[in-house]
């Protein structure tokens, strides 16, 4: 789950990485009591989770005189469709130079990977494509408490030495907070020292519980409901609902829909060993999306029993047509239950998908 800038900066500050003097506000009036501390040069940053927030008008420069008016204006705006409900008001830094530093999980080396580059505020993905040599990288063995000093020296090169401890502290945060990304961009040098001018932290979805995070904000309401039921659920923008067991099989079903010229409305993986009650919930959830015209159920029973799946489909009693492919454990019984009720069943995933695309178009 992505943390907002003010949440990420709070963590940085608690762990000894300097951040600009700043206040988190929910209305323009709240700014009044902080104006003296903020000084004359102020930056107002909308706390919305969108990329390129600055370009989209989410970051506004102000001074002491006009800050409240500008904050009011920003609160009335939408940034890439998202209403501004919270603002981080910060003292503007006297930036001399900007750097980029991030820590991610590297799949190939199976360890944290630190990226550092001279020149901050950049889009690292673009830099990686256009100037790959400008990015210095270092992998840390995940059992180490600190980044070895030599590695820090190699990473920062001729950049100011005071950046070194910042990177090591960021690594501590990365580990302690179960982060899959911890990024400071830009990391700014100023006459007052080094500051994290912007920060981004993403917490591992599998560790939200032990990090004390109760609600995953990155999920839509339906996605959250699905998660509660132990389903994986993704919303897309077509007209065919897709239910499968196992992420790979369900994804392959989506791809097959595209192959036959259709478009999936959503993706629901019921997981292993689903019983009829869960299948019923799954079918109802997928059918609750207004754009769903037809539902494909593609199940390959191993620990999932086909008769349970069949009962779940029947109990769901949804208005849309359901086209079913069942194979594996208790297949015969499952098929008999469905054919008694007049459901359309086909033998392979190619056939069910082809049929669903015909119905949907």
């Amino acid at each position, binding site marked *: 789950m992505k943390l907002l800038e003010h949440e990420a900066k709070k963590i940085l500050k608690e762990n000894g990485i300097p951040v600009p003097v700043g206040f988190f506000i929910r209305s323009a009036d709240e700014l009044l009591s902080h104006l003296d501390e903020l000084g004359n040069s102020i930056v107002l940053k909308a706390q919305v989770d969108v990329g390129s927030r600055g370009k989209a008008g989410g970051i506004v420069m102000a001074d002491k005189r006009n800050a409240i008016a500008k904050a009011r204006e920003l609160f009335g705006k939408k940034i890439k469709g998202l209403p501004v409900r919270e603002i981080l008001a910060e003292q503007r830094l006297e930036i001399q130079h900007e750097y980029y530093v991030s820590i991610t999980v590297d799949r190939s080396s199976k360890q944290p990977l630190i990226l550092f580059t001279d020149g901050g505020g950049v889009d690292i993905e673009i830099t990686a494509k256009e100037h790959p040599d400008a990015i210095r990288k270092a992998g840390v063995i995940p059992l180490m408490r600190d980044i070895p000093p030599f590695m820090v020296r190699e990473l920062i090169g001729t950049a100011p030495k005071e950046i070194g401890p910042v990177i090591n502290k960021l690594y501590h945060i990365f580990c302690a907070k179960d982060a899959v990304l911890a990024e400071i961009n830009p990391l700014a040098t100023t006459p007052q020292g080094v500051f994290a001018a912007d920060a981004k932290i993403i917490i*591992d979805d599998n*560790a939200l519980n032990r990090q004390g995070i109760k609600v995953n904000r990155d999920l839509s309401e339906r996605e959250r409901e699905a998660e509660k039921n132990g389903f994986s659920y993704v919303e897309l923008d077509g007209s065919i609902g897709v239910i499968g067991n196992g992420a790979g099989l369900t994804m392959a079903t989506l791809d097959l829909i595209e192959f036959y010229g259709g478009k999936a409305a959503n993706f629901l993986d019921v997981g292993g060993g689903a019983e009829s009650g869960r299948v019923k919930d799954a079918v109802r959830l997928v059918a609750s999306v207004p754009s769903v015209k037809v539902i494909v159920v593609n199940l390959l029973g*191993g620990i999932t029993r086909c008769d349970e799946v069949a009962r779940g489909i029947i109990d769901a009693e949804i208005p849309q047509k359901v086209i079913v492919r069942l194979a594996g454990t208790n297949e015969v019984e499952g098929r008999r239950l469905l054919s008694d009720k007049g459901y359309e069943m086909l033998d392979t995933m190619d056939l069910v998908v082809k049929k669903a695309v015909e119905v949907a178009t």
Partner: protein
Amino acid sequence: MIYGDRNTKVLVTGATGKQGEFHIGLMNTYARNVGGKGVVAGVTPGKGGQQVHGVPVYNTIKDALDDHDATTSVLFVPAGAAGDSIMEAANAGLELVVAITEHIPVHDAMKAIAFAWMQGCSVIGPNCPGLLSPGEVKMGIMPAQLFSRGNVGIISRSGTLTYEVVDELTRAGIGQSTVVGIGGDPVIGQTFIDVLQRFEKDTQTKVVVLIGEVGGNLEEEGANYSDLPLVAYIAGKSAPPDKRMGHAGAIVEGGEGDARSKIARLKKIGVPVAERPSDIPDLVRGLFKGC
């Protein structure tokens, strides 16, 4: 065979849970049918002295190894304790841990896999269905009735999609040597490269099918390494960016790891890529002709 055969003795950690108990039964049914050793002991802290399907349960892996010379553990431990269980297995001297558990925090996985590597222990998974060498050994949760013995190796990041492909191959009269589910998480122990290295040394395996999906570039890395004839399938062509497609590792991030660029890179190094799972048997047959 890679990773084990009918003589491999297996421990199950998390033996007394619902999943552990269920699959000890299935693994030992399989072992009986092929004349194999199967699961010889279970481990659950605090449950030592119990039995599961006639298999004795111990409090620790070390206790179990005092009575049984097992080399492999298949792990059904809940996510929060699974990293610890991998390290316990490695520390006790096991050669292989098959981690079935899903939703292990990625930091736990990184630490446990690094620790196991230092002890010379290989980890398959986490978040995987395990492996099956038809006629020899089943370590994990794959539905054995779909498999048939033959010369095709399979390496896959998925569970049920693997069964789909195995089913297609078996129906087409093409048997399998060993099928390995390496797991759907971003950080996994054995990757395509590691399993391919084992297949290279396995005289039974003539062709390998790689079943990949969006996220990362481990498929291409593996394919690039191997001299074996390969066929690939990549799931997730229709996956939108920044959406996790069921598996923790199935996500296109920062414009990287999307299916189309993976497929393009695989084709560039000469690997035929199946458009649909049902196209895989024909592509495999084509490579057999070339052998």
